[in-house]
C-alpha cells in the first residue's frame, strides 16, 4: 500500500494524499465542517488538481462502500472518538476457551468487567445484541464495548480466567 501523507491546511482542515501506481496523485481534503473533497492530480503537473469532487458525509460513505471499505467500522470508530474512554474491540474466541458451549450469562462478562457484548459474529453471520442466554462457540468473534481495561479483562476471561 502506498504511504498516505497528511498535510495541514490552516483554516481549512486536513489533506490526505498518496501517489497511485499509475503516477497520479489521489487525495482527499477533509474540511472542518465535515465536507470532503476528492481530487486527482496527474503526473503532468503533479501540483494541480485536475478533478475535484465535493462529497457530503453520506456521499463519502457511499463511495467507500463502493470501493469495498466498511462503513460500519468507520461509524464505530467515529463513536469511539466521540465518547472519551470508550473502546470497541473485536475479540476472537479461541478453541481452548473454557466458555465454548456456555452462555454469555455464564461467563458473567458484564458483572465482572462492566463490558457489554454488543454482537457476536459467527462465520459471516452477525448476531446483534445477544441476550445472556446466547451460547458462545469456539471461533466466534465477540464485539465488545467498554473501557480499555475492561476489554483486556474480558480477553483474559475468555482465554481461561
Amino acid at each position: 500500500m502506498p504511504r498516505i501523507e497528511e498535510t495541514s491546511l490552516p483554516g481549512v482542515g486536513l489533506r490526505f494524499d498518496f501517489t497511485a501506481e499509475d503516477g497520479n496523485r489521489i487525495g482527499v481534503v477533509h474540511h472542518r465542517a465535515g465536507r470532503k473533497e476528492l481530487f486527482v492530480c496527474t503526473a503532468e503537473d503533479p501540483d494541480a488538481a485536475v478533478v475535484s469532487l465535493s462529497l457530503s458525509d453520506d456521499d463519502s460513505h457511499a463511495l467507500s462502500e463502493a470501493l469495498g471499505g466498511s462503513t460500519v467500522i468507520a461509524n464505530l470508530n467515529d463513536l469511539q472518538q466521540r465518547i472519551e474512554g470508550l473502546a470497541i474491540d473485536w475479540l476472537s474466541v479461541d478453541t481452548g476457551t473454557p466458555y465454548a458451549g456456555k452462555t454469555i450469562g455464564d461467563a458473567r462478562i458484564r458483572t465482572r468487567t462492566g463490558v457489554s457484548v454488543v454482537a457476536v459474529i459467527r462465520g459471516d453471520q452477525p448476531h446483534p445484541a445477544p441476550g445472556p442466554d446466547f451460547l458462545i462457540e469456539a471461533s466466534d468473534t465477540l464485539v465488545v464495548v467498554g473501557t480499555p481495561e475492561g476489554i483486556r479483562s474480558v480477553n483474559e476471561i475468555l482465554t481461561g480466567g
Partner: protein
Amino acid sequence: MDHGALLLVELGAVVLGLGILARLASRLAISPIPLYLLAGLAIGEGGLVPVVTSEDFIEVGAELGVIFLLLMLGLEYSAGELVAGVREVAPAGLVDLVLNFTPGLVTGLILGWRIVPALFLGGVTYISSTGVIAKLLKDLGWMGNRETPVVLSILVFEDLAMAILLPTLAVLAFGGSTSGAILTIGLAIGVMAAAIAFVYRRGDWFGDLVFHRSDEVSLLTVFGLTLVVAGLAEGVNISAAVGAFLVGIALSGEAVARADSLLSPLRDLFAAVFFVFFGLSTDPREIPGVLLVAVLLGVVTAATKVVGGRWAASRRGIGRAGQQRAGLTLVARGEFSIIIAGLAVGVPGAEDLPALAAAYVLLMAVTGPLAAKLADPGRSRAAVG
C-alpha cells in the same frame, strides 16, 4: 415620517441594496467587497444619495463588522496551525512582508505624507485578503493542489502579523510616547502569545466551557464575551479587532465547527455594513485624484505578491506552474486592507488615505481573482459546491 420610521426605511433600503449587490457579485462570480465599497461611496457625503438618519447605526454596525471578521478569522485557526504557521513559513512570511509593505510605505512618503500615514498605506498593500482567497481556492478547486498549503501558511503569517500591526499603528496614530508605544506592542504580543500557548496546552477547555448544545446559549455567550474582550482591548489600546481575534484563537474544539454556521450570517451582515461605512466615510470626489497612484501601486504590489509567492512555493519544491498559481492567488487584497485604512480615519496627515485605499482595494479585489483564474489549467472538474 418620524425619525424612527425614517431610520427603518433608510436602513432597510441600504441592506436591501446590499442584498441585490451580493446577488450580482455571485452571478458575476466576483467578491462582493468592491460592490459594497462602491455602494458606500454612492450613498455618503458627496455621493448620489445622501444617507443621514441611519449613519450612527451604520457606524456601530461597522465596528461590529470588524469584530466579527476578526473573531471568525481567529476561530478558523487552531493554536497548532498558528504555531506551525510561524515556524514553517517564517522566511517566506518575512519576505512577503518586506516585499509588500515597502511599496505602500514608499508611495506614501513619495506623496509627501508623514511617516505614520505612510506606514498605514504599507499595511494596506501588505495584507492579502484571506476571505477572497479562501473563496477563490474553493471555486477553482485548488484545495488539493500542492502549493495550496504554502498559500494558506502565508495567510496565517499575515494574519498574525496584522494582529501586531494593528495595535502598533493605532498607538503611532493617536499620539502616545515611544515608551507607551513599545509597552502597548509588547502587551499585544504578550497577550497573543499567552492565548496561543494556553490553547496549545489546555486544548479545548475554553471552547467546551463557552459552547453549549443550545445554539442560543452559544451565540449569546460568544457574542457577549467577544464584545467585552474587544472593548477591554480597545481600552488598553491594542484595538478591538485584535481582542476579537484573540477570543477566536482561544476558542477551539469540536463546537467551533458549529460556531461557523452560527456566526457566519452575522459576520456577513455586519462585514457588509462595515464596507459600506468605509465607502460612506470616503468622499467619492477624491477618487479620481488618487486613481493613477492606486493603479500604479496595484501593478507594483501585484508583482511583489507574485514574486514572494513563487519564491515561497519554490522552497517547497513546487513546479513552475504551481509557483505561478501560488503567487497569483495571493494578489487579492480586501477586507483587511480596508480595516487598516479604517483605523487611519482621523489620523492627521492621512486625509488622502481612505480614498486611495478604497480605489486600491476596488482594483485588487477584482483583478486578483481574475489573474489567478487565468493560471487555471484546463480541467475536467465536476461542480464543486
